[in-house]
């Protein structure tokens, strides 16, 4: 039934996948280029079918705190926004991380800084992968490159968030949010019952009869010794995630003389440039990190051993390139950046030009 191949925008795919996953609540505020998430949810009216709550909050700050409240009760809750809106949410995201609450946050990035443009960008890489708000924390950050991945990462994001009790983020860009392509939506699964939630989330504020110790969900711990213990527990979780959850895709890296590292939709534009280069006999490979945190340091280090140079392509001034440098850890390796900013998306020939530069320049 749901094996049907459909054509839709990445933003629409997120909304449909959320309903099918059995998400309990979505709280959001419209902003281009991700407004179709909320619009699709409202058009689908899942409150009549699965009982999912869809609420347009009065602001992004309200949305993320509604997510906090829902997550504290063990519900599968999410929000989505675009760059300026995600900045407004940072306090709430830090609280979610500190309270060890699972939730899904979708950022369909647009050109910044400030209000910037409504066009695609990847300039929130630092914000997403380094936590974003205050304090020592990480989000699990997933970077989709297709409408299919937009759909699939809803389930993956929630599964990982619940497994590790940490918020996860889909870090998309305006290209993958706005473009339409084919997608097969996941099989529907029912929303969890109250009893299933109580069993899966023994930490949650689910309400209880006399006898059970009250569950307190808070990020506040005024005793520094205890707060350090909390931090140590968070860090243990992050080390576990780093060991278990690194995801990436490698194309043509086996025989590559040059390597491109790119994430999200831009990786696909790079792939086109790589196809063109290979037609001319130039062996170029690509690593596309799927988890931006945890970052595929080992895979990139391994792939870099046989190449003459690395080109990092991003829709920003050079952010992921810092992680690539950390991964390669070789001062003699030629690592160059090519990026466009402010909402401009490069076409394949610009990437070809950047590739030619790295091949000819010392």
């Amino acid at each position, binding site marked *: 039934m749901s094996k049907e*191949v*459909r*054509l839709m925008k990445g933003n629409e795919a997120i909304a449909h996948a959320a309903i099918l996953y059995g998400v309990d609540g979505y709280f959001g505020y419209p902003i*281009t280029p991700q407004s179709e998430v909320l619009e699709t949810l409202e058009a689908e009216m899942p409150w009549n079918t699965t009982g999912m709550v869809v609420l347009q909050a009065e602001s992004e700050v309200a949305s993320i705190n509604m997510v906090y409240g829902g997550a504290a009760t063990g519900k599968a809750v999410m929000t989505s926004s675009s760059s300026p809106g995600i900045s407004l949410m940072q306090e709430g995201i830090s609280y979610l991380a500190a309270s060890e609450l699972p939730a899904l946050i979708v950022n369909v990035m647009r050109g910044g800084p400030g209000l910037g443009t*409504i*066009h695609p960008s990847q300039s929130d890489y630092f914000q997403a992968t380094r936590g974003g708000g205050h304090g020592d924390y990480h989000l699990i950050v997933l970077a989709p490159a297709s409408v299919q991945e937009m759909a699939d990462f809803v389930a993956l994001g929630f599964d990982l968030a619940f497994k590790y009790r940490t918020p996860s983020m889909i870090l998309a860009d305006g*290209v993958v949010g*706005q*473009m*339409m*392509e*084919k997608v097969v939506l996941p099989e529907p699964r029912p929303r969890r019952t109250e009893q299933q939630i109580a069993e899966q989330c023994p930490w949650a504020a689910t309400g209880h009869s006399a006898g059970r110790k009250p569950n307190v969900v808070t990020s506040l711990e005024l005793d520094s010794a205890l707060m350090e213990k909390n931090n140590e527990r968070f860090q243990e979780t992050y080390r576990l995630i780093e060991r278990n959850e690194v995801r990436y895709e490698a194309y043509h890296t086996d025989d590559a003389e040059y390597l491109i590292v790119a994430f999200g*939709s831009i990786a*696909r*534009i790079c*792939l*086109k440039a790589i*196809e063109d280069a290979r037609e001319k006999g130039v062996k170029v490979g690509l690593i596309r990190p799927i988890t931006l945190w945890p970052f595929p340091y080992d895979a990139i280090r391994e792939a870099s051993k046989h190449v003459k140079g690395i080109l990092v392509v991003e829709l920003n001034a050079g952010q992921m390139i810092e992680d690539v440098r950390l991964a390669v850890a070789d001062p003699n390796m030629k690592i160059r950046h090519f990026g466009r900013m402010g909402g401009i*998306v490069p*076409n*394949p*020939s610009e990437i070809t030009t950047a590739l030619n530069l790295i091949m000819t320049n010392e």
Partner: protein
Amino acid sequence: MKQEIIIAGFGGQGVLSMGKILAYAALMDNLEVTWMPSYGPEQRGGTANVTVVLSDQPISSPIVDTFDVAVILNQQSLDKFEHAVRPGGILIFDPYGIHRMPQRTDIRIIPVKAMDTTIEMGNAKSYNMILLGALIKAAPSVSVDDVLKGLKKVLPERHHHLLPANEKALLRGMELVD
């Protein structure tokens, strides 16, 4: 088979919808397809364009530099995209409001008087369907049947009474190309 198409004009001319119907037609034909819009914040006015890639193979990039076919609906878009048509490619344009005609000699240039035809047909909303008809006649990547099936998917059911008028415009557009 791979066809990279750009449709470009003013917002409100039905540029994005035309690409969408084409994309759905490709879906009906089991082709791979990407539809990538580019437009400003305006609901109407401003420039709008959409890149549609159709292929029988998986599509890497939804964004390309050069095109097999360009459908051009205003002067700005003609200035911007005339040079982006691959040698041997096709440029379809509506001469209405165009003051500098296309100059290329290495591509097939097809003027389609879509605006005049909509006036003649008395249905301004059929503008983009006339051009879509011209497109699938000049560069047959999808069939008329698939376009009509695609249109049925794109058009909300409450507008399905408009399907015959759209079909008429599509067929009229096909007649405008030799």
